[in-house]
């Protein structure tokens, strides 16, 4: 749809494209999993938008925690419990700082982005939505930022409306204004970066408009936090969510950030140990935030590994990671458009704000067939609807192939992709 029109050769590249701002070789050396052969070829991992890989420091941190300091957190009066609690709460501080939050106790540890959004929908949503109220999402949302709102709207009688996607595959802010114009919108919930087509949304602008209309603003930052500098106070949003496993961290851990006043006013989510103050058979009173939202034994090792992951990203510098992503996205889009007549590229043009996630289809080859062929060339991509069925419908495709480039991907990975696509064309006689 928005395939770049001009080809570009290495010698005609603008200065900032000639070299990545990251030292990719040094970074790759930190990711042990990348050092392997798949089907006889070097592994070329282009599926980080589904889940990134972990640097050795994260794996080591988890092992180190279990080998030296593990015990249950809070309420413990012995040394290991003190150490475990300290490491767990230190991780909270690291995540808070990573998001630009003002306070550590505004960060709730969850399993994932999905759980973070469910937590908000089932607490803030249940308490604040009712018939006549509207929750605005967008056609570009991941299912995790759609289904929780569907469920809560069904429960409360509120209505769900979706910001349209423009022909150049961005959010239609005029349509957002039209939706906000009703005066009934209580919450706007959008992604920050599309996992399907790489669009980066103008979240500052959406926050401003939502607030002007008296609505709160929740951001699904699953794809953004791993690759953009995030500052929740500068964005001026109300809720921000992301997952550890897409940000070089462990699986099973995620974060919800929300303004303290909102967290204080929200009813608890799950019930159980750690989140209570006093329990009688009939009734209980609840602990203060963030513990009110962390019932039961939390993913202690996961949180500590998450802390190590955001430290890792912080050390590389999110600005630099973003510059790398912009560069590689542009290279990929131009190279693919240049090389393959039969390719259709989705997402905004390369000169527009976008991430290193490139969705495409090639001739009449089914995306899963493409994925299988590339896999046999050592190249891991994803095929399907990318948990964005409404967007796929909007784009008029059942599925796309998606290659997502992250901080350990460089030109050689792009060339492997190109070779794999040639092989697919050859096999399919395109």
């Amino acid at each position, binding site marked *: 749809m928005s395939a770049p029109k001009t080809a570009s050769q290495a010698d005609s590249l603008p200065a900032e494209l000639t070299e990545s701002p990251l030292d990719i070789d040094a970074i790759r050396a930190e990711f042990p999993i990348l050092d392997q052969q798949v089907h006889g070829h070097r592994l070329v991992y282009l599926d980080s938008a589904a889940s990134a890989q972990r640097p050795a420091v994260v794996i080591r941190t988890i092992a180190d925690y279990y080998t030296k300091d593990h015990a249950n957190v809070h309420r413990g009066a012995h040394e290991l419990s003190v150490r475990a609690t300290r490491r767990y709460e230190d991780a909270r501080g690291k995540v808070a700082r990573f998001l630009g939050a003002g306070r550590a106790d505004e960060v709730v540890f969850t399993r994932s982005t999905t759980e973070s959004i469910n937590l908000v929908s089932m607490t803030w949503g249940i308490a604040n939505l009712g018939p006549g109220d509207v929750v605005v999402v967008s056609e570009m949302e991941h299912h995790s930022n759609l289904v929780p709102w569907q469920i809560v709207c069904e429960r409360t009688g509120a209505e769900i409306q979706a910001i349209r996607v423009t022909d150049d595959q961005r959010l239609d802010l005029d349509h957002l204004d039209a939706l906000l114009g009703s005066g009934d919108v209580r919450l706007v919930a959008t992604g920050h970066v599309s996992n399907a087509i790489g669009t980066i949304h103008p979240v500052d602008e959406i926050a401003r408009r939502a607030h002007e209309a008296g609505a709160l603003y929740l951001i699904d930052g699953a794809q953004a936090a791993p690759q953009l500098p995030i500052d929740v106070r500068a964005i001026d949003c109300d809720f921000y969510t992301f997952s550890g496993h897409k940000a070089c961290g462990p699986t099973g851990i995620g974060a919800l950030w929300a303004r303290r006043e909102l967290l204080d006013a929200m009813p608890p989510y799950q019930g159980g140990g750690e989140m209570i103050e006093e329990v009688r058979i009939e009734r209980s009173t609840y602990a203060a935030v963030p513990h009110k939202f962390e019932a039961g034994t939390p993913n202690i090792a996961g949180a500590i590994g998450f802390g190590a992951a955001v430290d890792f990203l912080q050390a590389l510098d999110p600005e630099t990671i973003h510059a790398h992503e912009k560069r590689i996205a542009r290279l990929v889009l131009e190279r693919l458009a240049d090389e393959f007549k039969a390719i259709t590229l989705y997402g905004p043009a390369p000169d527009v704000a976008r991430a290193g996630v490139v969705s495409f289809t090639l001739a009449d080859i089914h995306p*899963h*067939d493409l994925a*299988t062929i590339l896999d046999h060339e050592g190249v891991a991509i994803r095929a399907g609807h990318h948990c964005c*069925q409404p967007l796929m419908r909007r784009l008029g495709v059942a599925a796309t192939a998606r290659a997502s480039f992250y901080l350990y991907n460089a030109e050689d990975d792009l060339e492997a992709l190109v070779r794999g696509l040639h092989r697919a064309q050859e096999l399919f006689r395109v």
Partner: protein
Amino acid sequence: MLESIFRELILEHYRKPRNKGALENPTVTVSMRNPMCGDEIDLMLTIDGDRIEAVGFTGQGCSISQASVSMMTQGVIGRSIDAALDLEKRFVALMRDDEGASEDRKLGDLRALQGVAKLPVRIKCALLGWNALDEAIKAHQKSPTGAMGEKLEFEDLTELPAGFDPATHKDDLP
């Protein structure tokens, strides 16, 4: 390896599927979804007594699923229900890489799909049409005329998520 999967014959069926299109008055229609990818086909059969008179299908999928269902229609049209079920058994054996299955001449062109057995993650694709056929026959046997008109919807849940050794994912654990 890849050459043994994306063969000439498969691509030919993928691009020119036989019996693709809706039947006028099917006695049974089954919609089957592959949860791995979300692809879905509608399989329509006209069964008269014990005989499969006509078969048609609509929907989309990858080269493997489309070729498999296309070849399947060729293999069952005009045959008895028992013959169709027998063919299904043989095809499943081929996908399980059972001994001798690749020599089974009764499978005809379907043997072109034998390479898929080496790609566990794609076996569901090859079986999509067959699972639909199986459900359609079951529905027909339950109520030879009652199913008429109404579309039955299924998701292929024969195994846990795609790509598993049926051996380690049996429903009945030891």
